[in-house]
């Protein structure tokens, strides 16, 4: 059921137990964004582009396109959820710098909120989802 209060749209679930603010839900992290943030958390101080791509591929159990990872990192940094810094390069990179990423406080908060919201959404749903498409 949809409900409006002022300019804000809310969704109230069938049992009127949970109320979701659509404005906040629209900011939920995408699945791939969550995967990248969790990868950063796992890698800690070693989170730079190549390591993130490899670790994300292991976590997601599939090949990950480098372009998708870099675009996601850019987007997350623009949102203020991660920060980055350049370090000096190594000979194998012809001296090109590495960019290391780390979660910001806002990033950690966003990850926690995303998990809570998704858990709330699924709380009263039967799993696996059945019925006719």
């Amino acid at each position, binding site marked *: 059921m*949809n409900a409006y209060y002022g300019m804000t749209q809310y*969704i109230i679930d069938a049992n009127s137990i949970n109320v979701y603010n659509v404005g906040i839900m629209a900011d939920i992290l995408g699945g791939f964004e969550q995967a990248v943030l969790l990868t950063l958390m796992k890698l800690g101080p070693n989170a730079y582009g190549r390591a993130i791509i490899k670790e994300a591929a292991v976590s997601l159990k599939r090949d990950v396109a*480098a*372009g998708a990872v870099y*675009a996601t990192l850019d987007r997350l940094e623009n949102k203020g959820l991660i920060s980055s810094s350049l370090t000096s390069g190594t000979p194998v*990179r012809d*001296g090109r710098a*590495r960019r290391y990423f780390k979660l910001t406080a806002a990033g950690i908060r966003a990850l926690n909120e995303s998990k809570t919201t998704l858990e709330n959404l699924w709380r009263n749903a039967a799993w696996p989802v059945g019925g006719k498409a």
Partner: protein
Amino acid sequence: MTLHFSKRFGKKGCACDDRPPLWAESLLIGFLPPRGREAISGDLLEEYREERLPTLGRMRANFWYFRQVTSIVSLQRFQGGPMKGVLLCLCFFSLAALAWLGIMETVLHHPGFVFRIAVDLLLATQSLLTILFLILRGRSGMKIPVAIGGGWIVAFGISTIVSILRAAHFEGYILVIGFALILQGALTVFVAALSVDRPASPGHIDIG
């Protein structure tokens, strides 16, 4: 941040055996915005040398490298890479040149000037469409019309150059405009072909 020559091509300034193809690396560096140029190209080079080349062999490693370049270029193209600037400059050059040609045709009234003005207007419309496409970052389902228009501009540019080379009076400015149109059209097709259709708001989740 500019990549120094020694960083791009090795200390001796040559393409060495453990390097990805020079053209692919140049394509990557050319398309990346300055901020990510050094780190991203370095990441790919590191992976290529340490992992892909020893395990896959040169041909498959080069194919892997090209696939990565394609994925990066297609997603980062609109984030300030120099190609966007080049295409925008070409579009504005075309608009200025077409406006000048249109004014000259209107003033001089040579035979067939109405048809030529109509062609000028079509070319100008396509240039404006490309500018809009770049500003909207590939949204609004403009991909196919922009790509078709780009192909038409390439064909028109080639026919212009051929006709001016066969003409009795050689006019250098037409040759310059023809080459600019070919480059603009080719870049437009390339940009449209690599663009990914995006929703109006990437963060939006449709729950209605």
